[in-house]
């Protein structure tokens, strides 16, 4: 190879190596940090992973919110209007967290089947419903209204 060619070859080789490393890193990080969404019904059916964080969405069940006295621990239930799931969280809840509101929680299930939330998200608009939650409610209602075979 002529010196010019050789240089160009190294240049391309260097760039390709860099780009491949970056691509590898990106895909690796992506698959490790991907978080799936599950509705409460899906969680009860055992579809959610046991050893991995996921997002759980639903409406906060009326009269289910209970604070432990003397700490910041709070217990509540989420539902897609058919199946409720127990959630526990420790910390400050968002401003728009209230009973009847659609929210999304990030965390994982413990051995008792309680969802331990690390983060609770409610959006900054009182009429807002997270699309995932709206979707899961629609599905749950559709499923329950299907005619039952005798």
């Amino acid at each position, binding site marked *: 190879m002529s010196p*010019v060619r050789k240089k160009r070859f190294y240049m391309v080789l260097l760039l390709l190596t860099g780009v491949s490393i*970056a691509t590898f*890193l990106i895909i690796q990080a992506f698959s490790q940090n*991907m978080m799936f969404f599950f509705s409460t019904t899906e969680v009860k059916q055992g579809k959610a992973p046991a050893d991995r964080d996921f997002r759980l969405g639903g409406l906060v069940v009326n009269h289910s919110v209970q604070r432990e006295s003397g700490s910041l621990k709070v217990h509540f239930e989420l539902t897609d209007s058919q199946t409720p799931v127990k959630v526990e969280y420790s910390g*400050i809840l968002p401003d728009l967290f209230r009973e009847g509101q659609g929210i999304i929680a990030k965390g994982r299930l413990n051995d008792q089947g309680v969802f331990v939330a690390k983060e609770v998200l409610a*959006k900054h608009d*009182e009429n807002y419903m*997270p699309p995932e939650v709206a979707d899961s409610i629609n599905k749950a209602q559709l499923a329950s209204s299907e005619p039952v075979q005798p």
Partner: protein
Amino acid sequence: MIPEIGHFSLILGLGFATVLAIFPLWGSYKNNSAWIALSRPAAFGQFLFVGLSFACLVYAFIDNDFSVKYVAANSNTQLPMIFKVSATWGAHEGSLLLWGLILTLWTFAVSLFNRSLPESLNAKLLATLGLVSIGFLLFILITSNPFERLLEVPQEGRSLNPLLQDIGLAIHPPMLYMGYVGMAVSFAFAVAVLLEGRLEMAWARWTKAWTLIAWAFLTLGIALGSWWAYYELGWGGWWFWDPVENASLLPWLVATALIHSLAITGARGTFQSWSLLLAILAFALSLLGTFLVRSGVLTSVHAFTSDPSRGVFILLFLVVVVGLSLTLYSANAHKVTHSKKFSLFSKESLLLFNNVILMAMMATVLLGTLYPLILDALGLAKISVGAPYFNSVMLPLTVPLAIFMGFGFAAHWKQDQGISLLKRMSLPLILSLMTAILIPLLILPDVQGLGILGLFMSAWIGFSALYWLLRGQQGHFAKPSLQLVGSSLAHIGFAVTLTGITITSLYSIEKDIRLAEGDSYHIQQYEFRFDGVKQKQEANYLASEGSVTVLENGEFIAHLKPQKRTYLTQGMPMTEAGIDAGLNRDLFVALGERLQDGAWSVRVQYKPFIRWIWLGSILMALGALLVLAAHIRNGRRSA
């Protein structure tokens, strides 16, 4: 009557945009100077009438004209005057009108300042901007008319979302849009050059000047958004990798690459086609950002409304713009390229490597933002990727970026020697290593590997820029050129931001605690004493106002008043944090909620160096403007 004038002006603006898009372009192919000459008056008319239309909307807000649907939905007689004005761009329709107004402003500015450009290139440039304008104004008129009237006029408006009742709304969107839409100018330059199909050396210099202004605005706009989120809705966070934040970061990354690529094109004449491609990409990503924010496909604080027809229109617009410009690019790019040899180790190659890294960062953010949306749209799965994904990719990409940034400054064009470069830069290298080790040892509470790495990168970027500025090309101190001062300042600004990011991320302390009246809580040398909560009434909200006295080593330093507000019109709760700001640390207190026994849940935070993140952005923007000033001066000298 006024809203109708506004609506009609907007239609007239569209008329001028059409004239601007057709006649100069036609004239440039037919060599008809009279038609080309129409471009300036058309650009002016377009700006005038879209401006008038915008003024009418502002007037409708000030006038409490609730017969206009958009005003009724976003304003209220109780709203303070400044928020009535800024509510104009507080929701979908008005923010698009602002987008349109800024586009016509940019177009008008280009038509004023580009008199020394060749006539035919100029015609194509303004025509391209006219075409973009047609797309946007049509979008507003067809899907998002802000002047739509209500048949039944309500007595009172629904008022602005309380989150937006803040000075942040007054300044963040206009700044950001100036940056976003400014990319349209770089894009139009690229398209004009490609249409012209001739190598035009002037275009790199011209495009660089316009890109610099847009980039400065974009930088400030993003920083303002981060600062606003920090004190208003973030509970102390300054960046969430929220899709909408990502949407503003994408064009920023590409524009940063573009400025550096244009620097090579301007100085050495190479990288023409790469610069053209970046200019197209930067604007495409601005449009994508608009699509993401305005179509309602996102779950985000920014996306309050959703209307599928709007999304479809922008998506279509995006596809047309990107499709046409890329077709043009593939057909004509070879005509405007001009290759020159440069060595594997040179300023060009270092700048090229960093361009590639910036593109990799862009791809990272794009993947994390779009992939979940695409999966969802196809009904395959609902997934999301959070901050850990972005952080774990961005960090390893920033390391080589920072190293090349330092060396790129001092490297010679065309060819350089590694050893000699290392020798030239040995002083800043040693200083940076010392800083990275000594600061954690002496000042910070503990030594962390990532902290040393982050501080080393920041120090290296900062010191190399500073050193090169003082040392000069000749090896002794000489009065540096304005260009060098500007670019050094921008690099130093980035170093300041990176320092802030490093220290805030690693050394912040955040505690959610339960405090009753009289309780104290300690973080390091700071004591937060909770003196209870009082009720307060303001014009449009009720507030529970906490009182927190902060002591440092027993001495009084601040009295913080965090609030929990309930806005009367919407009945919506809002948290207003109490912040004691400082150059080397912020102390942050926010009220959670009242617990059963009269105590409150409180978030207390110690945020070291967080101000540096935004301070650095201001330096970056200033640096860009100095480089621009140097450009203008040199241009005048050579003309």
